[in-house]
């Protein structure tokens, strides 16, 4: 019966094939005020569960901090959301309609999910300016790239972001020649020019001076609202300075969620972080 039902489906005159449906402009349904739904996510590497039935909901426009010890699953979670790792089970939806688990990295990026990596990864053999040019939010098809000419709108956008991250005087420099902190800034700038709806920021202040850290904190808080920001960070002082809501991960699942004070007084968190010494 199975093949026949497929056949019937095939010759049905009402049927519209997927490839005939014109590609809609990206429409992210956040009518329930939730931008990212992660439910029952499990990822196991050779039996080790990096994520274990993890549930996480990120509201539209919020700034959320993810904390947790090494191996708690923070980076794996980001890998799943951005399409780098496929989970063993669970679902991840962007808005109510976009199933992230069926999409490639590039499709997810074009939906508006931007990622800053833990280790700064910029294109070292390209100039700072070219790094931003590549990251610009625009059509990324092959022919568009071949015939692309920088227009004034894009130029202004890049100039504005370069100003924001204090890299204007380095625009012609190779990105590989930047200092560690500057590379972090460049990567943040690349995120910004891609105008993502959701920013996933992995350890943004590692290797930054206290002044730069403060600057980053200001930047991230100013982004929340218009964008949705998820920050993974170890630096508790930094988390305290930016976060309204914090999620604690432990052994691949959510241990606690709430504001910073609640978290610090949560007995489970205390137990995990301080051990069972008392």
């Amino acid at each position, binding site marked *: 019966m199975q093949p026949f039902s497929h056949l019937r489906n095939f010759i049905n005159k009402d049927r519209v094939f997927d490839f005939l449906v014109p590609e809609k402009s990206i429409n992210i349904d956040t009518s329930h005020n939730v931008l990212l739904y992660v439910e029952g996510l499990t990822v196991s590497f050779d039996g080790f569960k990096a994520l274990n039935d993890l549930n996480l909901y990120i509201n539209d426009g919020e700034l959320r901090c993810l904390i947790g010890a090494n191996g708690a699953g923070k980076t794996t979670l980001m890998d799943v959301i951005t399409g780098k790792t496929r989970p063993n089970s669970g679902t991840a939806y962007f808005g109510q309609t976009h199933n992230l688990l069926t999409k490639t990295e590039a499709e997810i990026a074009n939906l508006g999910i931007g990622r800053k990596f833990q280790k700064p990864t910029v294109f070292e053999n*390209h100039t700072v300016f070219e790094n931003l040019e590549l990251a610009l939010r625009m059509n990324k098809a092959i022919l568009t790239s071949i015939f692309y000419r920088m227009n004034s709108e894009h130029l202004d956008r890049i*100039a504005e972001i370069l100003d924001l991250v204090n890299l204007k005087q380095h625009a012609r420099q190779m990105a590989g020649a930047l200092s560690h902190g500057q590379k972090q800034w460049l990567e943040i700038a690349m995120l910004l020019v891609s105008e993502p709806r959701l920013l996933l920021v992995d350890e943004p202040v590692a290797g930054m001076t206290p002044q730069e850290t403060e600057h980053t904190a200001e930047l991230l808080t100013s982004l929340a609202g218009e964008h949705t920001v998820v920050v993974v960070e170890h630096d508790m002082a930094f988390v305290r300075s930016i976060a309204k809501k914090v999620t604690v991960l432990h052994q691949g699942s959510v241990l606690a969620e709430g504001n910073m004070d609640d978290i610090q007084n949560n007995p489970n968190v205390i137990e995990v972080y301080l051990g069972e010494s008392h």
Partner: protein
Amino acid sequence: MANAINSSFLSMNNTTREGMLSSRGGNVFLALLVVVTLLASVGNQLFPAGSALHVDTYTITLLGKYLSFALLAMAVDIIWGYCGILSLGHGAFFALGGYAMGMYLMRQIGDRGVYGNPDLPDFMVFLNWSELPWFWQGFDFFPFAMLMVLLIPGILAFIFSWLAFRSRVTGVYFSIITQALTYALMLAFFRNEMGFGGNNGLTDFKDILGFDLQSDTTRICLLLITAACLGVIYLLSQFILSSKFGRVIEAIRDSESRVRFVGFKTENYKVWLFVYSALIAAIAGALYVPQVGIINPGEFAPLNSIEVVVWVAVGGRGLLYGAVLGALLVNFAKTHFTGILPEAWLFALGALFVGVTIFLPRGIVGLLSSRNKSMEDKP
């Protein structure tokens, strides 16, 4: 104020990195190409044999052969130097383009073959075949044959690279399967039953579009056409690779996963570039065959494809005219070296590759450009 910022950005965008060098070197290269081919043609036609300025036909053909090798080297440089994909199988696309051209030339022989059969090429008569196989149909029509020169290698490159890149095969694994591809094709073409002349290949060509292949003027025309193809494809490739597309390709070379997270479908970019590169190799093959007068399965030999990589490494990868320079120099050396000490050539080639890799990682062009830079640094 805004205008000042804009213009400074625009100018910086044009002069990044090797932008200056490649445009200057490229102009020199194009000028040399025109001057040398014209001088050679004039020298052959206007000065009588025996004059000091006479260029003999052998040299003309040799030059044409070198230039088609240069085109092949450029194809490898585009995929290896710019995108970091080391293809050790470009000889396959070169040979397929050559075979398509060879099939056209075979059909032009008509009844002038040894057996005098007007319908069948000699080797088919020899094999007692009674009629022309279906895949030989249409090859007596020049435009169809030229279409096949592009279509067959293009489709093969598309299917091959799409399968490889979609499965994210990269690095040395990709290089190995390209070797396997060209080796498999070589074994197939060696078989008589394939219908491509077995290990003798296709040869004994008489004329192309009605012009006698042995005459001086035809040979000069072939040289000029080869030079023109090299020039036009150089300009086209320079345009493509200096566009944003080229910067995406270089970013893929340096950090492919990062490019994916920026939103580019890197597989599509790589497939596109691979097919483009294979088409250039096929054109080079089609230009090569009428000038040397033979195409046989030996052209598929894995060693040939590796040799092309050596040319590119010697000239300097990542710059198009570097590949051209490398192909010309190594082939010139090969012609003379094999004349003096044939059995030592392969050792010399190996030593050259090792030497260049250790001492000149950016090839001869890299050496020139670093000298230029140090001269500019001095006031």
